């Protein structure tokens, strides 16, 4: 994906999916613990909590429960972010709960991830929720999936159990467009194949989970290789007399690379000009860069005086964005109040906010089966294909081509809630 810039930067963002029963919290706890990312005071707090709950030793799943209500109810309520690093890479895990509001939370966690770890209980095999997790990962554009078949200790580490799950799931993943899936047999409770190879499963010759995460390549070069996209955050016009003529545009390069002299188009107006300078501030003042790439926050200076403001998109002339006032999108509804097709919502796309309306609902996606079914309404945790109309043209790409210029959120202007996440289709 064009947004996969993190690995270039020595970082991997992971979304995890699975329920408490799959041992997801235990697996994450094990990753943190075995990579020595758990501190002694956290460990002694977990030990105390384990004892309070009548358990013994250390319940690693308690490492990831944060809020009072979660500890009381033994569940995870919200997406939590975990950080750990090895000598090779820095990791951010977005850990989503597996029960109610699952879709909303997993969509949130997956939106910033490079890769998803899906958990399957070896005893239970493929469940409805396994397919749902995979489908959401696929819809959110995650092409890299690691399937951890957990609790191998409870099936006597039998290769046949693992292989049959792998075979069945691989077929399904291929069907929904996930081509890079790696399967690992693990026992999170005992640490088999998490950080160290398992002595119990000599038949597995692949990498243990952590080593796989350290070395997995997520096509990071594609972000830099994609066409240049620069949503303008703000126009920079310093008040000082000495810089009266200076006019720069502040923003982050969301894809592609840029050099002075590059031909660009400002959208949606269509103005054509060239990049004159790329500036960043260092302690001793502003510096010109010979080039900049996806992920860099810079100030661009253009060759011609243009009327450009926040919300405009500066794009490569050779591969401009599409201007559209009407387009298809996949919506994930996130609010307890259902979609009201008669209402206007505020749509935020890159740095532009425009009034928008859902013109029609094409179909709802059954996230358990992947089937598309006719529907008239859209409620919490529903995913649907819709046609949207916006008041002003947006400079957009398909989500499949660019995760930044292809995504948006809808905001209810009365409640100010973020009510939907959207991915642009055609």
């Amino acid at each position, binding site marked *: 994906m064009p*947004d996969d*810039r*993190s690995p270039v*930067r*020595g*970082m991997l963002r992971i979304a995890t999916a699975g329920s408490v029963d799959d041992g997801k919290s235990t697996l994450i706890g094990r990753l943190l613990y075995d990579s020595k990312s758990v*501190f*002694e*005071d*956290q460990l002694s*707090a977990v030990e105390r909590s384990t004892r309070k709950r009548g358990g013994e030793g250390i319940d690693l799943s308690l490492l990831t*429960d*944060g*809020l*009072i209500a979660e*500890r009381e109810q033994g569940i995870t*309520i*919200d*997406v*939590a972010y975990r*950080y750990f*690093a090895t000598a090779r890479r*820095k990791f951010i895990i977005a850990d989503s709960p597996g029960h109610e509001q699952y879709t909303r*939370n997993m*969509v*949130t966690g997956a*939106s*910033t991830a490079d890769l998803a770890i899906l958990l399957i209980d070896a005893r239970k095999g493929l469940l409805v929720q396994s397919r749902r997790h995979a489908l959401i990962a696929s819809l959110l554009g995650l092409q890299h999936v690691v399937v951890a078949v957990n609790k191998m200790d409870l099936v006597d580490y039998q290769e046949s159990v693992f292989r049959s799950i792998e075979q069945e799931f691989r077929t399904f993943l291929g069907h929904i467009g996930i081509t890079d899936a790696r399967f690992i047999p693990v026992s999170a409770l005992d640490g088999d194949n998490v950080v160290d190879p398992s002595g119990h499963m000599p038949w597995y010759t692949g990498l243990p989970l952590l080593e796989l995460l350290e070395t997995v390549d997520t096509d990071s070069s594609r972000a830099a290789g994609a066409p240049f996209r620069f949503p303008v*955050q*703000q126009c*920079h016009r*310093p*008040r000082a007399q000495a*810089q009266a003529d200076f006019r720069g545009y*502040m*923003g*982050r390069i969301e894809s592609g690379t840029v050099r002075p002299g590059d031909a660009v188009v400002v959208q949606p107006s269509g103005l054509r000009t060239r990049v004159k300078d790329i500036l*960043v*501030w260092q*302690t001793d*003042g*502003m510096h010109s860069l010979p080039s900049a790439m996806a*992920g*860099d*926050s810079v100030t661009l200076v253009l060759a011609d005086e243009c009327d450009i403001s926040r919300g405009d998109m500066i794009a490569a002339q050779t591969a401009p964005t599409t201007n559209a006032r009407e387009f298809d999108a996949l919506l994930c509804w*996130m609010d307890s109040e259902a979609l009201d097709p008669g209402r206007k919502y*505020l749509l*935020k*796309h*890159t*740095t532009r906010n425009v009034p928008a309306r859902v013109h029609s609902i094409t179909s709802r996606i059954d996230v358990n089966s992947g089937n598309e079914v006719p529907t008239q309404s859209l409620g919490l945790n529903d995913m649907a294909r819709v046609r949207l109309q916006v008041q002003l043209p947006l400079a957009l790409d398909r989500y499949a081509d660019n995760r*930044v210029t292809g*995504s948006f*959120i809808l*905001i209810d*202007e009365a409640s*100010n*809630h*973020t009510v939907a*996440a959207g991915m642009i289709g055609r």
Partner: protein
Amino acid sequence: MNAIAEPLYREAPSAAPALSATHLDWLESEAIHIMREVAAECANPALLFSGGKDSIVLLRLAEKAFRPGRFPFPLLHIDTEHNFPEVIEFRDRRAAELGEQLIVRSLDDSIARGRIRLRSPDESRNRYQSITLLDAITEFGFDACFGGARRDEEKARAKERIFSFRDPFGQWDPKNQRPELWSLYNTRVHPGEHMRVFPISNWTELDVWQYIERERLAVPSIYFAHEREVIARPGGLMPTSHLVQPRPGEHSEHRTVRFRTVGDMTCTAPVESPATTVAQIIAETATSRITERGATRMDDQTSEASMELRKKEGYF
């Protein structure tokens, strides 16, 4: 203060070749992007600056986001009047160097006006900061406040959004947060509500020190090893001061220590350490087996959920 005379602050020594500087670039760019979103979409933001390392990093990020212009917001400090004097002097000096406006609101004033009622005069003022902070937010009509909190610090913070909504009572409702997708931030609030914005949410303590080294940022001297009189208590070392004196059976002794966080003198414990340079602090942080707050914050040790409870009341 019993600290041996130290330079007020210290330049980091010339930086060693940066280790994996690339992830710092990513974190830096993300933070700049967040700050510019606030400047563009919020009407009246402020940046909470305490003189601590995390908010020192925020100031450098603000320079990178907005120079050669001025910051589009003032700096705001909530002063408990129990802060380490080295940190307060650093705060004033740094604001002056930057030429940016610094607003200070004091807990002494809130106490004098009856807004804060202490149960006892020597009670920790830590949680009362929320009252003075919320009063200042109302006084100036701020609709967004940048803070230097990080998700790796504490388990309640691990669940907090980068743009964290506060209701008209300044309260955080962890069970009812807005979903936050991609880097599309919903900055909208109604009058009387506000946002806390945490541009370095995704940074760890180690990232912060590596960035301080890379950018050669000055930090208050108490972050480096120095001789200090302390009282050894079960939860950690307490710095001896006019606010903290030995109880019967305790004694005050000299140790070589440094602070991993800077907060109130009544609840911030130093750790024993010989680290006198940023590079040595990085080496120590990389191998530390105790979390930053676990080692140093008595206020977090009250219960499993003290931070969550304070945050719900409007804390940083």
